[in-house]
């Protein structure tokens, strides 16, 4: 097995507030291999973005990493100094966020920003860096890149700006790209262009991608593997086809059935009762148990740990051998 680019083990992130310690991430583990796209899905508040922020070292107080390890190519990065982490970000980890304007400075031209990032991380002259910036803009599909490079972010449309951000994220040839809802703010017809672009560029470079989104459609088409998050934990993680078409975890089953599809026409959508719990009131045992149709006594007491099943990991007591008789 090749060494994973990113390896997260038992990650815990907490926010210390007046109402107590909120466990936003509570024991999350996953790996991403070189060239692999890991999709992270879940409903709002599930902990997708906090997981991404933890990996790039951007958890701000009152938040803190309260446990676990994050390794980039085997090297721990969760305990680096802010200065060292800043060098890892940008150079070894590229970032793409929902709103391209958060990644772009309105006061500088696109070219100035690209050249600066490139020269911070790669030993190139100003001229070489500019050449490389133009090539990158061409690669992400900006027409007339030698002219557009001198434009300011506001002169680009939303889709074009997101292309510039992708160029920026890839400019220092990172090993890992974290993309948090990269297409959520874009029009449907542009979404597909951007997703295809991220996937193609990273595949060509062997870059690992963590793609965070609440859009199952995007994941279904882009990711190699997918992690379904619920209440700060991973309910199920495995190959995307398996998890989307034949989910095992009751929450994943409900989630897939709740999504209307163009292909399969259902009269009624699957309904999961209730809503995701607030962080201040996460139920004991399995956090999904008050909403779960299949819950049994143990679910309210024992926390389900991830179990290996069918090439995936599922955190549900139904798949525990000791309870197989109840599950069947």
């Amino acid at each position, binding site marked *: 097995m090749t060494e994973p680019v990113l390896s997260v083990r038992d990650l815990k992130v907490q926010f210390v507030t007046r109402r107590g310690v909120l466990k936003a991430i509570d024991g999350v583990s996953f790996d991403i291999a070189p060239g692999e796209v890991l999709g992270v899905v879940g409903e709002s508040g599930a902990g997708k973005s906090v997981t991404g922020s933890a990996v790039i070292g951007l958890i701000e107080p009152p938040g803190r990493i309260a446990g676990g390890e994050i390794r980039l190519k085997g090297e721990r990065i969760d305990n680096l100094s802010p200065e060292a982490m800043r060098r890892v970000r940008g150079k070894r980890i590229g970032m793409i966020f929902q709103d391209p304007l958060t990644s772009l400075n309105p006061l500088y031209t696109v070219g100035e920003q690209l050249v600066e990032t490139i020269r911070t991380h790669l030993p190139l002259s100003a001229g070489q860096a500019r050449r490389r910036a133009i090539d990158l803009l061409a690669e992400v599909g900006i027409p007339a890149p030698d002219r557009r490079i001198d434009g300011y972010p506001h002169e680009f449309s939303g889709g074009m700006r997101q292309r510039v951000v992708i160029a920026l994220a890839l400019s220092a040839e990172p090993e890992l790209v974290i993309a948090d809802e990269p297409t959520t703010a874009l029009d449907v017809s542009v979404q597909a262009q951007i997703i295809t672009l991220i996937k193609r560029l990273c595949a060509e470079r062997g870059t690992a991608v963590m793609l965070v989104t609440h859009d199952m459609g*995007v994941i279904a088409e882009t990711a190699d593997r997918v992690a379904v998050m619920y209440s700060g934990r991973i309910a199920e993680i495995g190959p*995307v086809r398996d998890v*989307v078409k034949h989910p095992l975890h009751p929450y994943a089953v409900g989630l897939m059935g*709740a999504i*209307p599809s*163009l292909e399969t*026409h259902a009269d009624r959508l699957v309904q*999961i009762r209730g809503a995701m719990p607030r962080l201040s009131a996460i139920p004991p045992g399995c956090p999904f148990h008050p909403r779960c149709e299949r819950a049994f006594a143990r679910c309210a007491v024992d926390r389900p740990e991830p179990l290996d099943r069918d090439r995936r990991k599922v955190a549900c007591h139904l798949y525990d051998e000791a309870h197989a008789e109840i599950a069947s």
Partner: protein
Amino acid sequence: MTETPFVAVRNLRRVFDVSKPWLNRMLEGGQKQYLTAVDDVSFTIRRGETFALVGESGSGKSTVARMVVGLMPPSAGEVVIDGVPINDPRRAADVRALRRRIQMIFQDPYASLNPRWRVERIIAEPIRAFSLSASAREVHERVGELLTLVGLHPADGDKFPHEFSGGQRQRIAIARALASKAEFIVCDEPTSALDVSVQAQILNLMRDLQDRFGLTYLFISHNLAVVRHMASRIGVMYLGRIVEIGGGRDLFVRPQHPYTRMLLNAVPDIAMTGRLREAVQGEIPNPINPPSGCTFHPRCPFVFDRCRREVPPLEAGVACHAVAEGRIAAA
């Protein structure tokens, strides 16, 4: 089939003045600028039917919705509901009588619910405004009924909107719409701000209520799968115009207009893992300066000279010269 439609929208048009203020124009130069948000939009909805408008951001869906419920006057064209042209001053009395029967639900239920009122008062307001119940006690009971109907508890009437989740607030908005015994509900992206599991709850609820009360819906969304799920007939909008209109099944199985084909090809769908897609070209142009002729022509793979000159009329449900001339093979 010649049954008169419950809602008829005819050649609706809305132009916004987006010029800089007069003084700036005087000092900096520049002319008056107009944006045609909706142009020549026509459709009908039968009683008890769900008709949907789908399109990308800025295509004019919300502007149509606002004109249909009478929140905004059209620049041209008319909206006729149950035989009453809603912008005809001579029919003011009929229009007033119609008000109670038309309601609207918005994307952000929080913005549409008065944050300082308790839920009971919010839901009771239309009952009082249209004098539908006599005594305070009757009103209270009716509110309890409505809350139960939308899956909340009568005791929730004592709470304020901020005490509810997004999905629950949308339930409150639906209860309020039903409070006036509405028959026609215009829903503008009612689930776009909700999580998918909550969206499923709300869509199921809207369908149940439709079956139960024979409601007529104009359902607006940018999400094709949601529209497919909810509507029997669908209009696809692009830059203010309906480019294709038809039954849900036909439209999704045999899309004709190049834009509809492109959209269907572009939507990531959960049933399509591992599918290869064709690259979609370009982005939506600036509506202040739309392309000539068919506004889709800069992005269209089937474009020919006529497209740049003439606006294609909506014929047999499709507004496209290439389709009209039989240049495109059926999908």
